[in-house]
C-alpha cells in the first residue's frame, strides 16, 4: 500500500478522505458544479476507489455534493436560499441541544460558559479583533452547550451541519461588527441555563442564531 498522508492516523480512511475533499471544496480547489469523478480522485489522492465512493456518500449526506443524473457527483452550489435553509435547521437543532443540556448542566459548566464568553468580548474591546479568534470562541461557546446535551447523535449531526458554514468563511468576517450583540445574547443563554429553564434556553439559542443570520444576510445582500 502506498504510504501517504492518509495512512498515519486513527480515523477511518473514508473519513479522512472526506475531510480532505471537503477542505478542497472550501478552498475552492473544486468549484461549484464541478464533477467529482472517482477514478480521477483516486489518482489525485493516491487511494483506491472504494473509500472514495464512501467519502462521497458522506459528503452527499452533509450537503457538500449532490448526485446529478448522467453527471454523477458534483460540488453543490451554496446559494443564499441554501444558507437560509441551513440556518433554519441549525437554529432548531441547537435550540434542541440547549434544551437537552439543561438536564445535564452543572454550576461548573456555567462557569465555563461565562469564562468563554468573557474571553470572547475581551478580545474585541476597543475595535480591531482577529477574525479567526472571534470564530474560535464563538464556536467554542456553542460546542460546549451542544456537547452538554449528552445526545451523541445530535452532536454528530450538528458537527456535520456546521461544516457547511465553513464554505462562506470569508463572509463571516463581517460578523465581527456584531460582537457586542452576540456577547449579550450569549449572556441571555447563560442566564437561562442558570435558571435551568429549558424553554427559555431553547428560545434564547434560536433567537441568537436567527439574529446572527439576519445580520449576515443583510451584509451579503448589501454587497
Amino acid at each position, binding site marked *: 500500500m502506498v504510504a501517504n498522508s492518509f495512512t498515519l492516523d486513527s480515523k*477511518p480512511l473514508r473519513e479522512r478522505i472526506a475531510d480532505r475533499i471537503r477542505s478542497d471544496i472550501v478552498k475552492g480547489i473544486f468549484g461549484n458544479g464541478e464533477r467529482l469523478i472517482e477514478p480521477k480522485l483516486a489518482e489525485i489522492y493516491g487511494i483506491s476507489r472504494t473509500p472514495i465512493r*464512501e467519502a462521497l*456518500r458522506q459528503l452527499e*449526506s452533509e*450537503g457538500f455534493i449532490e448526485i446529478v443524473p448522467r453527471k454523477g457527483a458534483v460540488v453543490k452550489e451554496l446559494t443564499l436560499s*441554501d444558507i437560509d*435553509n*441551513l440556518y*433554519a*435547521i441549525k437554529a*432548531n*437543532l441547537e435550540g*434542541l441541544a440547549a434544551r*437537552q443540556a439543561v438536564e445535564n448542566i452543572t454550576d461548573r459548566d456555567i462557569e465555563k460558559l461565562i469564562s468563554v464568553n468573557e474571553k470572547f468580548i475581551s478580545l474585541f474591546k476597543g475595535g480591531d479583533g482577529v477574525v479567526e479568534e472571534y470564530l474560535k470562541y464563538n464556536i467554542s461557546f456553542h460546542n460546549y452547550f451542544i456537547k452538554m446535551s449528552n*445526545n*451523541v*447523535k*445530535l452532536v454528530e*449531526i450538528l458537527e456535520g451541519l456546521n461544516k457547511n458554514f465553513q464554505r462562506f468563511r470569508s463572509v463571516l468576517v463581517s460578523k465581527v461588527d456584531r460582537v457586542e450583540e452576540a456577547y449579550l445574547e450569549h449572556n441571555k443563554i447563560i442566564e437561562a441555563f442558570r435558571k435551568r429553564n429549558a424553554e427559555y434556553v431553547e428560545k434564547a439559542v434560536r433567537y441568537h442564531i436567527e439574529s446572527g443570520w439576519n445580520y449576515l444576510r443583510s451584509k451579503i445582500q448589501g454587497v
Partner: protein
Amino acid sequence: MRDINIDNTPLSEKIAETLRDYIMRGSLRPGERLTEPKLSSMLGISRTPIREALRLLENEGFIDIFPRRGAVVSDITAKDVDEIFVIKTKLESLAAKLSVAFLTDLDIKRLSELNDKMGRYAESKNVVSLIKLNAEFHNIFIDKSNNSRLIKFIESLNKQFKRVTAYSFTELGRIKKVLEEHQQIIEAFAKRDADMVEILVDRHVHNGWNFIRSRIEQKISN
C-alpha cells in the same frame, strides 16, 4: 434460507433486506459477527454483493464494521432510541409547520387516501406495506416544507434510523392510534393551522417513540 427472486432490485439490496429481517427478528443477535465467508455460505451468494449489502446496513445502523473485527450486529439501546427520536420529532414537526403554506388541496386529498389505504392494510396485517405507506404519508408534507436542505436531512436521517423505526409496525397494537393521529393531522392541514400541525406531528412522532422504546425495553428484558 429465503428465496431471493430475480427482479430489478440489485442483489446487494436483496441481501440487505434478508439480513435486516433476520436482525429485526432476532435470528441474528446483537454482538454476533457477520463474516463474508459465513454469509456467503449461509445465503449461497458470492462475496462482492455481500460486501455492498454490509455497507448499506452499516449506514442504516443495523451493524457496525470494526477494523480487523469486521461486521457485528449492532446493539440497540433505549438511549439510541431516545437520541434519534428527539431529533426526528423536532425536524418533522418543523417540516410540517413549514409545509402548511405550500400544501395544496390535492395534497390533502392524497394524505386522506393514503391513510384510508393504511386502514385497509391494517385489516390484512400487511406490515411491509404499512411501513411503505406511512413513509409516503409523512413524505408528502416533508417534501412540501420548501426547505430542500431539511428534506434531504430528514431523508438521510430516516435511512440511518431504519434500525430503530422499523419496530413501529412490527405489532399492530399501535396501528389504530397511528391512523387516528394521521386523521387529526389531516384536519389541521385542511384548516391551515400551522401551530396545530406542529403540535400534532410532534405528538404523533413522540407517541411512536414511546411505543418503540417500550418494545426495545421488552426485548432487552427477554
